[in-house]
């Protein structure tokens, strides 16, 4: 039963991740940032281009892990896909943190509380939205360890 849930969940997550990755690449090739509600996709070669390639890889890792999902090698693929997303999302959050601390050119040494918090308001890149969903893999890893 758990395997079935895992397969359906990571199939959906894999497809969504793949779509986000492809969109990242398309936006980068297009050369203009894309913004839709709380979602923002950068056309920057580093974040959009290389980042897009990594998101596509994560999507493919998820999809290739579906067959016999709880088997150790298959589960490791899904875990690796999540690690890729954690690297991207982690670095994105780190960039926001580094930008939010200093007071800016001509300003005080440290940012005001308002300025600090405003660095964390949306829009966010796709990987930030994928981050909480990718954490579900920890549940399956934990289950396997117990078993």
């Amino acid at each position, binding site marked *: 039963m758990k395997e079935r849930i895992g397969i359906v969940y990571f199939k959906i997550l894999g497809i969504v991740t793949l779509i986000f990755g492809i969109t990242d690449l398309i936006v980068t090739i297009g050369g203009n940032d894309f913004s839709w509600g709380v979602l923002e996709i950068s056309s920057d*070669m*580093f974040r959009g281009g*290389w*980042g897009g*390639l*990594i998101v596509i*890889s994560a999507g493919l*890792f998820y999809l290739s892990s579906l067959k016999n999902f709880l088997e*150790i*090698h298959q*589960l*490791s*693929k899904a*875990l*690796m896909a999540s*690690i*890729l997303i954690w*690297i*991207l999302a*982690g*670095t*994105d959050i*780190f*960039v926001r943190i*580094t*930008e939010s*601390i*200093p007071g800016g*050119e001509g300003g005080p*040494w440290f940012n005001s509380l308002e300025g600090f918090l405003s660095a964390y308001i949306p829009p966010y890149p796709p990987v930030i939205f994928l981050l909480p969903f990718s954490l579900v893999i920890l549940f399956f*890893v934990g289950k*396997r*360890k117990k078993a």
Partner: protein
Amino acid sequence: MTLTTDERWDLIEKISHKVVTFGKFEHTLKDALGELTVKSLTGIPIAIAVLYGFWSIFSSFAGTLCTDGFFVKLFDGHFLPWMQSIFPGKGGWFYYIFVGDPAADNCFEAFGVLTSGLFVAIGVVLPAIFIFYLMMALLEDVGYMPRLAVLIDTIFHKIGLHGYAIVPSILALGCNVPAVTATRILETKKQRFIMMTLLAIFIPCGAQLGIMQEVIPESIGIVLLYLIFGYFIFGFILNKLISGKSPEILIDVPPYQKPLWNNISRKLRMRLVGFLKTAVPFVLFGCAIVNILYLTGTIDWLAKILTPLLTGWFGVPGETVGPLIAAFLRKDLAVAQLSAIEMSKYQMITSVVLVSIYFPCVATFVMLLKEGWENLLGSLAVLVTVIFLYGGLINLIWTLLGVQ
């Protein structure tokens, strides 16, 4: 009786079957993850992600947070005006050497020993080196580096090296000095020569990367691309030209493990102290020498003589001769100097590539000499050829694209 390689392996297998007891091995999740990182189909995207994270953290910590966030403010807003106001003899040569241009309003333009020298060493290079070595130590401790070596082994064989060449290559991204020592892990003279030459020419050190991130953030990708292409093209050529063996290696790949903070802090402290001892005196000394050369008119004289070569063959302004001389002392200093010269984006890219592939900095030069003068002379001969060929080629590419 001489055995062939296959026969030796057969013999090893027979002996091992007799003397080794094989138990039941169960794959753990760590093992499975480890396998994914060494298979090329899955390992390459993972390596790209690791390098992506590495670069992203490096640039946002060193550039955005430390240098732009605090040190620029500290040095440009407080330290420079203070030095300009308290240092005696404004306009004199002593003032010019130690404080630099009295009209400058930022440390990149002042170019004094105590202003730009200290700013580059402490405000730009130190945070870059700190974060670089911290992440490097983390990757080593986790156990990712040997896997990267296995992954990249096939590519390195094309240039006469093997997977472990990744160790000096990545160390050189921090500082070329320990990287030259690290070439001793390669087995043959041929391999060591190729590695030393390539890292001295094509691998920018952490200090240089930090300053490039500060001065030309939008073009750094193109500069690195040129250097990576150069690394493999000239590595391939050297492998074909130089006689000698490039043997296979067996790499012991340890399991992934939790990093130990004690290990990391010890490695970090050791590397940082080593770097500061080598770099800071050279940055300050470099500033002084370049200023003296400017004051005595040597750089203007050299610029006049070398302008036809610099503008005609490389397509860069004659004023770049100053930074090229500074590059021998410190390459980060040279890139900082380039930022004060007026030139197009493409000339800037060519100039930064030239500074990178031009003569190794004096500290690396000394290390190369320690490894043997034959190696040093050989590397220098390759270096001169590479500068002219590659520098001219880049200029040709810009001309053909119509952007020069």
